[in-house]
């Protein structure tokens, strides 16, 4: 028995090194295995509060840019509003009156208190949580374009899976012909992503606008995603899809204010779809 103790004493440094490394790796693996079950620390109240304090200082440095963005968005919204008014005035179609349809999308303003862009899986923390009606799965957009999707929320904070996450794909379409594809991030630059599944017989030009499709319930339809930057050459002849580089509309390095989108009809649509799938599979 004493021989064992002697051995442990002799190798205590190495043994504690191994033990602590195993603990670290265990923490690492356990927190990355389930993307959905992830409950990150900054959604945790204390860390969130500390980031809020630091954010309230750094906010001042972004004021000019935030103002510009807001002014730009105001202009766009005004234009949309007047278009809507004009349409109502001149159309013979019965206007939609169902308040549930009109108010299908509900926006909550939130501030980004913690953000990362240089990892393979990027997350951010926002300062709104369950208390403000934020739930897992809601879409997050910025004045410039899409941002991500809520992955977990605590009472006062939520974590958001950024579009800059290699495990996420977003249903997107070309604005000009409504052709569907899916947007994926390749983990390289926070300014660019890839649009895949666009068939190669279509003509796609540099600068074409890409928007969300609205086929999934996370984002409202026609939210700006980005612009076609370059169409890559095919690697094999048999490939029948285009590989498009997309310049993202959102600047993830400078995110300050975002909107969380609540889709009032999400449950209705999702449950109907699941029902249909189940029927087909039976």
């Amino acid at each position, binding site marked *: 028995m004493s021989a064992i103790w002697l051995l442990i004493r002799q190798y205590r440094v190495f043994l504690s090194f191994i033990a*602590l*490394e195993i603990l*670290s790796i*265990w923490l690492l693996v356990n927190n990355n295995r389930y993307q959905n079950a992830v409950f990150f620390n900054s959604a945790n109240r204390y860390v969130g509060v500390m980031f809020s304090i630091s954010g309230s200082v750094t906010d001042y440095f972004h004021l000019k840019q935030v103002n510009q963005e807001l002014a730009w968005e105001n202009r766009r919204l005004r234009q949309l509003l007047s278009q809507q008014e004009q349409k109502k005035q001149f159309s013979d179609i019965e206007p939609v009156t169902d308040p549930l349809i009109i108010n299908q999308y509900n926006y909550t303003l939130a501030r980004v208190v913690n953000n990362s862009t240089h990892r*393979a899986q990027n997350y951010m923390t926002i300062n709104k949580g369950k208390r403000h009606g934020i739930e897992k799965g809601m879409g997050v957009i910025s004045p410039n374009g899409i941002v991500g999707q809520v992955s977990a929320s605590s009472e006062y904070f939520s974590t958001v899976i950024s579009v800059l996450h290699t495990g996420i794909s977003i249903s997107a379409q070309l604005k000009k012909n409504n052709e569907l594809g899916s947007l994926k991030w390749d*983990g*390289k630059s926070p300014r660019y992503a890839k649009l895949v599944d666009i068939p190669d017989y279509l003509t796609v030009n540099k600068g074409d606008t890409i928007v969300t499709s609205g086929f999934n319930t996370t984002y409202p339809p026609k939210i700006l995603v980005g612009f076609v930057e370059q169409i890559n050459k095919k690697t094999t002849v048999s490939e029948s899809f285009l590989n498009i580089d997309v310049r993202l509309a959102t600047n993830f390095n400078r995110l300050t204010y975002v909107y969380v989108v609540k889709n009032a009809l999400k449950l209705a649509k999702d449950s109907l779809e699941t029902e249909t799938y189940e029927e087909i599979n039976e």
Partner: protein
Amino acid sequence: MNNSNPIKLIILFFVYVFIQVFFAKNLELFGIAFCFIYINYLLIFPLEIDKVLLLILGFVLGFLIDIFYDTLGIHSAACVLVAFIRPIVVRLMTSKQEILAISIKEAGFRWFLTYALILVGIHHFILFVLQRFNFGMFPGTLLKSVASTLFTVLVIILIQYSFNSPYVSHARK
């Protein structure tokens, strides 16, 4: 060296975590060089510390940083490794030259630079490899580790010259 005042060391611990989380976290050069200055705390910790204690300290330091970076395990793993190899590097490097404390003042610029480059390099490399875990982008990872190592070591050297290492007894000379 008997100037390793424990209270000073504890305060310094939190100072490094604070600086890392609220300042250095926002530092980024050309999208490839990041600053992980907190590792300096492990680098210049007094020589006399027990090896096991240094390991535990490394783990706690890494764990705290991980909490703020939302990357549980990554910084702790890298810090524990640095804490483990620090005594080995010191032993190998002191075979030629005896030193009293780890600072430019005590050990000389070249000694300190080599020491910092080795340990910071290993720490950053492990950090970026673990971040990219299931990701086959080796050249990018290597570039980031080299660029970040140079950045962090530069800041560490600047700190050395600015504060002349808080562990060096000024009265001794």
